[in-house]
């Protein structure tokens, strides 16, 4: 695989992608490609995204050996790695970043979240991240986690309590509630489960974020009459499952069989007043008692609608999110792009999934390093960065973070 070069005075970024099967060879290969652009400078941060085959300590130890102790390492395993080359299975991607003068980053992780109060865990993570950041402008935070929506929302709430409710926090949740994929979170030399790894970047970094899903509402609005966190018991006073049973004209047993397809293609959308589009929630499980478990919380009293998308509407969303992210750079050149793309979008786009990458490259330039993963939930402010709004947990979205100079 080739190497991209960002000819910047301040930020240096290098990216490498290896398709080699042997983890040691792949690690060396990806690192060497990425390091070529670093002009012998030590990276401040390494973001590692790999397919599940490389999710073991061997890969991370080898990479950490190459990087040295001064470079923070975070990342995650994903079903596939997003890069300039498209969406690759069985691959290892390494992005090295040398921050410009006056910019800082701090990385931290929190483990065994299930064993404790998620909110407290979030607060602890926030405190760890803020260490050394006194008096420095915090630009944005990035979090990767593998927790269930309930724990994740508690964690994010705790984190936001420390970082500020309107602090731009972006991230991805890798855990698939359908249990189809068991991800790992990478922090330093360890692949972790039931954990979250995060970084805060601050200083005077020029960046932009865009997020969009591309699903459209269909049918009449319905009221969530009984719910608790991510479990919806009743909609319009009837069993929650009635919503899907009516729409798909099938009973509960058949509905369960179609769960994977329903989860990917037909989420529900929650109308959010201050947001420009519906907040999506995909079904994670269908319970015998007629309740629906979603990949994200749905507050009682919410007005929801069934959502539907086409390939075109998804690709339009990619264009929108990409342009939105680029618009915040104020004309500066994009130097690296981080993408969290929902696995559902990837499934829906099918053979056209590479078009997402083409759109991103078209917006930011063919040779601007792109790295990303397939997520099961995305964390981002629904409105613009200027809005400095609260970060929401999203489903089915593409999130584009661009850093410019």
């Amino acid at each position, binding site marked *: 695989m080739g190497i991209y070069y960002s000819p910047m005075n301040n930020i240096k970024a290098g990216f490498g992608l290896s398709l080699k099967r042997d983890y040691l060879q792949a690690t060396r290969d990806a690192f060497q490609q990425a390091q070529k652009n670093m002009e012998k400078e030590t990276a401040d941060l390494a973001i590692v995204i790999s397919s599940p085959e490389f999710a073991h300590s061997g890969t991370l130890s080898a990479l950490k050996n190459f990087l040295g102790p001064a470079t923070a390492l975070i990342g995650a395993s994903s079903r596939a790695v997003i890069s300039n080359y498209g969406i690759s*299975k069985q691959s290892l991607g390494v992005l090295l970043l040398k921050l410009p003068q006056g910019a800082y980053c701090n990385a931290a992780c929190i483990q065994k979240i299930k064993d404790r109060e998620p909110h407290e865990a979030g607060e602890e993570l926030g405190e760890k991240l803020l260490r050394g950041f006194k008096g420095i402008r915090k630009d944005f935070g990035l979090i990767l986690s593998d927790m269930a929506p309930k724990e994740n929302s508690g964690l994010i709430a705790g984190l936001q309590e420390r970082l500020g409710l309107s602090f731009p926090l972006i991230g991805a949740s890798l855990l698939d509630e*359908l*249990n*189809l*994929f068991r991800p790992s979170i990478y922090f330093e030399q360890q692949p972790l489960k039931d954990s979250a790894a995060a970084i805060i970047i601050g200083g005077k970094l020029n960046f932009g974020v865009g997020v969009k899903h591309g699903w459209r509402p*269909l*049918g*009449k609005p319905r009221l969530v009459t009984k719910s608790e966190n991510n479990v919806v018991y009743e909609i319009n006073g009837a069993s929650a499952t009635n919503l899907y049973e*009516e*729409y*798909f*004209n099938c009973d509960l047993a058949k509905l369960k069989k*179609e769960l*994977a*397809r329903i989860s990917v*293609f*037909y989420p529900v959308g929650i109308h959010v007043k201050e947001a420009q589009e519906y907040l999506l929630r995909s079904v994670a499980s269908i319970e015998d008692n007629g309740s629906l478990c979603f990949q994200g919380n749905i507050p009682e009293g919410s007005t929801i609608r*069934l959502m*539907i998308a086409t390939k075109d509407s998804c690709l339009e969303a990619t264009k929108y999110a990409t342009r939105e992210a680029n618009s915040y750079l104020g004309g500066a050149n994009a130097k690296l792009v981080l993408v969290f793309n929902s696995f559902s979008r990837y499934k829906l786009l*099918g*053979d056209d999934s590479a078009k997402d990458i083409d759109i991103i490259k078209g917006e930011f330039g063919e040779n601007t390093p792109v790295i990303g993963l397939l997520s099961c939930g995305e964390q981002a402010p629904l409105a613009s960065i200027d809005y400095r709004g609260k970060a929401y947990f999203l489903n089915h979205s593409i999130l584009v973070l661009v850093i410019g100079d």
Partner: protein
Amino acid sequence: MMGNENLINILGLSGIIAILSLVIVLVLKMEKIKHMRNENELLRRSLDEMDEQAKLIVRTDMELNKTQEELDKKMTGLYALQRVSRSISTTLEESQMFKRIDSKCLDELGFEKTCCFLWNNSNEKFELRLCMGYAEEEIGKLYSFAQDNRQLFLGLINGDSNLSSLSFKEEAGLKNAITHTFGVHSFVIAPVLPKEGQKGFLFAGTQNLDFAITEGDEELISILANQLGQALENARLFEKTWLAQQGLEKKVEERTRALSQALEEVKIISRRKTDFVSAVSHELRTPLTSIKGYASILLAGNLGKVPQEVFSRLEKINKHSDELTHMVNDLLDISRIESGRVAMKPVPQDLIIILEKVGDLLGVQLKERGLELIVNISPDALTVLADSEQLSRIFINIIGNALKFTPPGGKITVRSQKRDHLVEIDVSDTGCGIPLESKERIFEEFYRVENPINEQVKGTGLGLALVKHIIEAHGGKIWVESKIGAGSTFSFTLPAAA
């Protein structure tokens, strides 16, 4: 008072007007509410209708998505299958065939774990021929499972039937055992059935929980297993044919060597025979010359008149000496031709001229026996390349034979015709004919057909052998067609003169 009354009247009137106005407003409001209710009802109905339409859209969309998914999967699967098939069909070596199955193609089919077992009848064990997606330490477990459940797998092989995670409805135990052992969530097992040799099964599985196996997947793996079986059959057939060919080549080589040796031996024997005949003939000719010389002297009366009885005996001695000399000369000629010591000097010869000379030579005998010699030479087959003296000997021998075996009043016909660069000459007679069993042997030395005429007519049995040698020395060949009582035709070829 009036003023108060007026005020009261005015107030009363105003009150009435106000009440009336209120009533009117109320009525209007009521109308508006009614209208709004109607509108609301219409809106609600529209929303319900819209929702019903939405349901139709969603159901249709779901069906389209399913179809698209299945189509995408089939397309990807077919491409992958095509690549695997092409790959395995490019080799005819069984071991290489399995190595050529690319794990990437099976990944594209949706199966990251694959293995193939073949049943060995001699030791009654399954042998692992292909294993992808498994670590070394897992392989033992697969072997044991295949062996322990041989009845199940042999049943599939013998029944030519597939087994997949779709097949199980009640026997969850077996499905769980397979998924647990092979470390997969879904799987397809299809028999590999070459017509001959070891048969087996192909296992393809995935641990991907979002990959729902369909009948289409089962079909693709079944096709792959069939192609594997076909490729194995081809490889085995090729190996069998190749081994048979090797064996045949070896046998041919051995036989050729044996034949060459035998031919060499025959040549040596033949050469010895020729040498022997040549030596004996030489040795015989000298005393024969003396015998004939002395007989001639005595017959001439140079040593005094001999009595009549002695004279007749001396004549016989002289005649037999001539015959013996003739035989010895023929033998010498044969041996010379065989050994290549007689070099033919082929020059264009006019067949009519040669036949005229032969006719003159044999004219008396022809006349005595009342036979007619007919010469029918085609203008395009008039000249041959031959040694003049030897060509005459050919005709003298063949026509001479015809003379002996053709009853009086018969005919001897000589014809010629062009055959490419050769001239074929046929000498036919209306004689007694040659038995079928003697047709080939009459060209052997000293062979004489057993018939009443031969018992009366003397001969050496060397004439036709000599003719054959002379013709072959010219690059031609001789054969005979004959029918008892109907005559014979001796045909021979000689190179045509340009």
